[in-house]
């Protein structure tokens, strides 16, 4: 590089740092809100700012976090998947059903838990594949396809156990959701690892970058030689597998798979709220794992503060919904035009 070019480029790379700084600011848009919530929590209940409470929050939001990673990937390619809720319930249910004896509403196969967990992942992958093929190759609307799929999955989940819940699960099955390393829940460690690995993957792997390209401009990505159909279907598969893992965590945490896990708590709404509060755009191509993680943490804190406060059980949902709307508004104000759309 000649001197002239060197001078030409020096100020430009400086400007590039500014661009990076601005994007970091957007990523960290929720930090002030989270700090505010922690302060509020301290005033609400003295038990809030304690290690057991925080590990509790961590364990509680882990399952949500994993499924939010899955949904964020799908949102990034410009898609949406409502049926992650169904996969979150059905995949662990199938595994549990294959493990427990018939007397406990099992299939009677008494499968090895390890094999059952493998099948659980395959169930997730299969659901994602069906969704992806219908949406990408069949050119069907993602909202309707996954809405239909949600209902099918919830029905199968109820059907195979006749609406019952499956208890007495082996420790291999509950390990991910229930065990701890020291005071730190395994689920929290695994979820954190999933966030970090996915974040690095999105930033530094060619497939991760292709996900942004496909979501940002499908036609341009195709013209640049990216195999867009393969990427999109692959992301639906990955999202569903992550939802299955999230469901396993939840089942481990409560030591049971209920006939309505996922469906009952309407978890998909919380998933969308966390992703969008975290700056993942519903229009595709925009968002990252730092944002998604802060969205999850924020909702976890809100839930925890509600539990610790004197708010009546009957009013918790109304207050939570209101807080979500305020958080969206704040994220937009802090993060600028682009955030929370």
């Amino acid at each position, binding site marked *: 590089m000649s001197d002239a*070019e060197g001078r*030409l*480029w020096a100020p*430009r*790379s*400086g*400007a*590039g*740092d*500014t*661009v*990076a700084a601005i994007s970091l600011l957007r990523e960290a848009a929720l930090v002030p809100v989270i700090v505010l919530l922690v302060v509020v929590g301290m005033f609400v209940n003295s038990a809030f700012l304690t290690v057991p409470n925080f590990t509790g929050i961590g364990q509680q939001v882990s399952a949500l976090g994993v499924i939010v990673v899955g949904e964020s990937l799908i949102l990034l390619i410009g898609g949406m998947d409502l049926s992650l809720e169904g996969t979150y319930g059905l995949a662990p249910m199938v595994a549990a059903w294959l493990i427990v004896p018939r007397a406990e509403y099992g299939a009677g196969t008494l499968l090895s838990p390890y094999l059952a967990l493998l099948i659980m992942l395959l169930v997730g992958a299969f659901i994602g594949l069906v969704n992806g093929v219908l949406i990408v190759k069949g050119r069907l609307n993602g909202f309707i396809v996954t809405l239909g799929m949600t209902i099918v999955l919830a029905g199968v989940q109820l059907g195979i156990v006749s609406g019952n819940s499956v208890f007495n699960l082996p420790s291999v099955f509950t390990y991910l959701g229930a065990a701890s390393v020291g005071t730190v829940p395994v689920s929290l460690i695994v979820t954190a690892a999933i966030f970090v690995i996915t974040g690095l993957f999105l930033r*530094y*792997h*060619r*497939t991760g*970058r*292709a996900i*942004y*390209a496909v979501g*940002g*401009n499908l*036609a*341009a*990505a*195709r*013209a*640049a*030689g*990216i*195999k867009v159909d393969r990427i999109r279907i692959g992301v639906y598969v990955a999202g569903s597998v992550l939802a299955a893992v999230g469901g396993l965590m939840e089942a481990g945490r409560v030591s049971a798979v209920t006939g309505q896990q996922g469906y009952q708590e309407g978890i998909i709404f919380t998933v969308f709220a966390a992703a969008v509060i975290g700056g993942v755009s519903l229009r595709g*191509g*925009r968002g990252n794992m730092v944002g998604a993680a802060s969205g999850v943490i924020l909702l976890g804190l809100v839930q925890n503060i509600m539990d610790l406060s004197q708010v009546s059980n009957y009013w918790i949902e109304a207050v939570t919904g209101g807080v979500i709307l305020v958080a969206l508004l704040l994220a937009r104000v802090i993060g600028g035009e682009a955030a929370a759309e």
Partner: protein
Amino acid sequence: MTVPAAPAAPATRSVVEAAGIRKRFGSTQALRGVDLALAPGRCLGLVGRNGAGKSTLVSVLSGIYAPDSGTVSFSGQPAPALADVGGWRRRIATVHQHSMVVPGLTVAENVFLGRQPGQGGLVDWRRMQAQAGALMREWGFPIDVRLPCARLTVEQRQIVEIARAIAAGTRCLLLDEPTATLERDATARLFTRVRQLTASGAAVLYISHHLEEVFEICQDVAVIRDGEIVLTTPTAAVSKEQLVAAMVGPDAVASPAAATTTDSRGSGTSARTTATTARLTVDRLSAASLRGSLRDVSLEVAPGERVGITGLLSGGVATLARVVAGAQPYEAGRVLVDGRPLTAARPDLALLAGVGYIPEDRQAEGFVPLLGVAENATMTIVDRLAGRTGWLRPQARARAAGPLTRRLSVVSAGLAQPVGELSGGNQQKVTVARALVRQPRLIVALTPTRGVDVAAKTLLLDELAEVTSESGASLLLATDELSDLVICDRVIVLVRGQRFAEFTGPPFDREALIAATEGLASWSGVWTISDRREDS
């Protein structure tokens, strides 16, 4: 029509009259005082080069834009307010190149769109269908009015639009390049309908790129150039050559100067020897497309050769480039790159075969707006930048993109700035960089200088010429902008999806090129004609 003659029109009072219309968009003066009158029972042809102001004039006449100054009047009455859409529609109807029917509604509904017969907001379906059917029969249009418009052909949709105008009692019809997407037989039928309309006393403004059509159905012709009507005359009193001369204008003699740059690069083309394998072989290619169909087009591009494809973009120019780039499927024929067949509609495989593609619409296909300059510019080479496991460092991307973005003088706040934030010219440079960074053996450029300023345009053309000279890559430059062709060794003109003429050896005669793109066979240029045009 027993009204006394208005001074502006020859015998009868004008149905539409535009006087002193001026319209400016930003720094572009699109119309500079246009006077135009349409007489009942006559068809006026409006011709002019791309960018001469035709479409702006159509928009003003049909009430889409208000002129900055000047007036539009209908049968002596001033035009309704811009907001009074219904008022405009009653007075003037426009049939666009791309049909404006609502595909989900039936023919009858489209004919009576917005004014369905009925009472109290309820649609009287039986009456609507009966009236639409009667209208179709009366005019001899063979269409079932109960069909949804989605199932109609392009020609039938045009008929629906014409029927809509007739049903509304409109006395004036604007046909904006109506034959651009029609087959030959359909064009003939359209002409019959236009004659029917004028015979019934309607005034028709016929806008076309095909001069022979204007001579066929128009009684009068007007030429617009640089936002001014430079010639208005009865068709019988003018020759095709005179029309072309009026469209091109006096500065056409400057065309050899524009081509001088080619001489300095002449040496680069000496590399073009009669190689054993052509870089690109297109063999009897036929493709149906809304962007313009292709019929039986064959051509070869030698290694290092720069071949221009010109004509109307909708006349197959865009389709040809897109097929070669793997962006579009085709029905018949073969496309070979370096002797190996190219898989249709697989841009990823075209890329691997060595084709670099600069798409027509950069907003749609050229870049991902949220991603940075370096990332967009290197999107075609991630397979090379990434290791076997697929991980890649942003620095590697910046290193690969840097030389090319500097060479193309991309102005940005660093290589990480999202391309969506750049100016149009710089976005186009990034799109070009994306195609060149893989060092393609064949560059397919579709209107690469569209919407960029003069400086960027010169730079882009120079770079395309230089890159091909340096690397021995071939260039297929598909464009409707004749000044882009200065860098070409050879130019092929497509008319209505077929090879019409070929110009070998620059500099190319600008007037002859224009005549050829208008489909004029007899011109005193030195070029071969590969067509069966028999008229004139």
